[in-house]
């Protein structure tokens, strides 16, 4: 009988992160952990990050917050005051994992660093997520998405050559770092379950994003060739020129990457025949023997010419037509999807990827991404609503830690919760 709420049933996580680490907590929720999001009294500052429900900038209407805190339980706690720290230590005694994304050294300054927490709970795993890591010359650097994208080297490769390098308009650097942190946390958790030994996981967003350079870095490492951003063209495949990979089509843009040799032969031949069958054949492409086609030996003029033929053909069809029909013909053409295309994607639809989450206080039902992996035995937990500010204070402070209502009122007035 398969488990419905992920493989990590009995794992308790205390989530102190802000936007640099929320995603790590979310992944652990999906894997089945009981994640308690600890916010400062008054709510987490990243509840002010948009977009917002109906564009109303209310801390309970941040779609950013709702996205990356699904399924967490929410409490408010101020670890800057003694009462807050005492309660936090009580929670740490019962926790398996603590994840945080404060400035490096901040928890130590409060007496809550790894050395302190591991005395309270030797088996504890502390995952610290930061833009550049807990140590090193940049550890105290102030960061934001664009700065991490810049310092990881990744941003230098996107955008048009006649304009500055450009980042993806929606911030992903912190999700990157947090996803890396989740992987590291799981490895540490595996070790702990085996040996009882906890440890400190130090995750860096810069390193996570830097690994996306992949072979671009290797061009320099091996042959001191530095790749440059080239707009909708691609470099790095054929050492000679740049090869267009984003083409206009009837209702937007599509992505078509031409590979040489055996890898690309089937696709290239399929496209050439498809264009020919539609009376829009390209003389140049018809003559090429695709099996032995070597990108390196194609001149830039030839590239430009047949790319023009291809675009003329694509302009006669929509994204989905090129995608669906192309696939039937073994021609790999992917739509450059807008968010709407992604939301309406038939593949995701068919795999019941989008899952309904009720939002009674917004009196709305929204569809959220489903499990990031389909597991046959331990299905990942379906998404549920993110917590409101302090929603589970009673449940945890009163029911679990046994604090009386009077004490909770006093703690509230002392700005501890």
């Amino acid at each position: 009988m398969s488990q419905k709420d992920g493989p990590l049933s009995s794992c308790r996580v205390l989530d102190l992160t802000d936007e640099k680490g929320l995603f790590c907590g979310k992944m652990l929720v999906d894997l089945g952990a009981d994640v308690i999001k600890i916010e400062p009294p008054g709510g987490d500052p990243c509840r002010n990050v948009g977009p917002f429900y109906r564009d109303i900038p209310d801390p309970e209407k941040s779609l950013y917050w709702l996205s990356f805190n699904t399924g967490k339980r929410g409490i408010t706690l101020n670890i800057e005051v003694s009462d807050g720290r005492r309660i936090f230590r009580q929670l740490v005694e019962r926790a398996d994992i603590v994840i945080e994304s404060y400035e490096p050294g901040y928890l130590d300054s409060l007496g809550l660093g790894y050395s302190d927490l591991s005395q309270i709970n030797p088996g504890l795993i502390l995952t610290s997520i930061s833009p550049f890591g807990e140590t090193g010359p940049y550890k105290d650097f102030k960061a934001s998405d664009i700065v991490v994208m810049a310092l990881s080297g990744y941003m230098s490769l996107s955008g048009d050559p006649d304009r500055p390098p450009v980042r993806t308009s929606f911030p992903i650097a912190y999700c990157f770092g947090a996803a890396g942190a989740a992987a590291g946390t799981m490895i540490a958790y595996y070790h702990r379950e085996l040996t009882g030994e906890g440890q400190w996981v130090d995750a860096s967003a810069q390193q996570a994003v830097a690994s996306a350079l992949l072979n671009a870095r290797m061009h320099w490492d091996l042959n001191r060739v530095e790749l440059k951003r080239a707009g909708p063209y691609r470099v790095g495949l054929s050492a000679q020129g740049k090869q267009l990979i984003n083409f206009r089509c009837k209702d937007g843009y599509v992505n078509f990457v031409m590979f040489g040799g055996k890898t690309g032969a089937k696709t290239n031949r399929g496209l050439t025949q498809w264009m020919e069958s539609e009376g829009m054949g390209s003389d140049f492409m018809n003559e090429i023997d695709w099996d032995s086609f070597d990108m390196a030996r194609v001149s830039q003029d030839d590239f430009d010419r047949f790319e023009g033929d291809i675009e003329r053909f694509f302009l006669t069809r929509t994204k989905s037509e090129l995608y669906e029909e192309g696939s039937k013909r073994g021609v790999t053409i992917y739509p450059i999807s807008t968010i709407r295309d992604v939301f309406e994607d038939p593949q995701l639809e068919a795999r019941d990827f989008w899952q309904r989450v009720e939002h009674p206080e917004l009196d709305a039902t929204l569809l959220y991404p489903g499990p990031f992996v389909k597991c046959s035995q331990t299905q990942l937990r379906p998404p549920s609503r993110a917590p409101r500010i302090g929603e589970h204070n009673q449940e945890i402070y009163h029911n679990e830690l046994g604090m009386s209502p009077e004490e909770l009122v006093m703690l509230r007035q002392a700005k501890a919760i």
Partner: protein
Amino acid sequence: MKQALEGVKVADFSWVGVGPIIARILAHHGATVVHIESETAPDPLRALAPYKDNISGLNRCAYHACLNDGKYGVTLNLRHPKAKGVVERFVEWADVVSESFAPGVAARLGISYEDVREVKPDIIMYSSCNLGQTGPHARFRGFGTNLVALVGTTHLTGWPDRMPTPPYGALTDVIAPLFGVSALVAALDYHRKTGKGQYLDLSQFESTVHFLTPLILDYQANGRVAQRTGNTSPYAAPHGVYPCKGHDRWCAIAVHTPEEWKAFCKVIDNPDWTKDPRFSSVLARRRNEEELNRLIGEWTIGLSAEEVMVKMQEAGMAAGVVETPGTIQDNPQLKHRHHYRALEHPEIGLHHYDATPFTLSKTPCDLKMPGPCLGQHNEYVYTKILGISDEEFVALLGEGVFE
């Protein structure tokens, strides 16, 4: 040195990006991983630049080496009738079996979950591909470079007045493995506690789309289809990259709050234009962003990107040099983090490998072995690890089972 995943045994039939990266991260943490390829149908990655000295060759491709370091490399021709016996030996040995062919190919090659489960009922197997094992588009071919477009990231990169420009390379190939490792290690833990194995169907599309969830909700709640906006941000102004001294050198700067704006003006010596009402408030700065960026560019052009970064950071502002593939390996922070580890590759020679983005204090990752050449460890793996007798090994070798 103790390692977290010591004793975990992985038979890695996967190729290209996501599958091998997942196995690689396990290898760095102590798992024994055997990367099984075939000379007759080599990993497409082995046919991608860069090659050592720009001379192509299956064993001269750094791309493949850097995604398969830490693994034993063997070759096995799965289409060969005798291959089935060898596969069974691998499955008996392994805790985890992985593959990342297009859906259906694994079944044809006899390494589907059904095949493997027959040999070892509690085996853990993961398949990763672009669009998942089921659904109408499951069999659509494509690499990470295509998926980046499908998942919506390409549309969101570039300038509003121009075509979308792709983020570099197979971005999704680097994101999906982080999900894969998390789920796989959770499955390993679950298996250790319950004895139950399972099959993991990792669709790279379905994992990486999680990063854009807020925009999915924005579309549902507000009917807005997010557009690319260059380097602007709704949260900050000034916000972007600014030209610095030297060829194509840039520094990113992000100013979020009114207090930071005051500090920013101080750093650039409070030129008169900073008092211009067009830049007097957050909203005003957002409305006149182009002019603002131009004026800032006039200041940054006189300084190196490093100088701009240091000046800003000292005043408490987020700023950073736009590193390039050519400068990234000298980045002081990545150097300190020991992110790039040099290993001596038999054909490529000394070159650098990315460490994992997280450091575990007691069981850190350890990069010991460079990427394997094709079939480099055939003899060791088949005789020492799988325990095939020398005679049988030589016989199978003769029959071309290991091509």
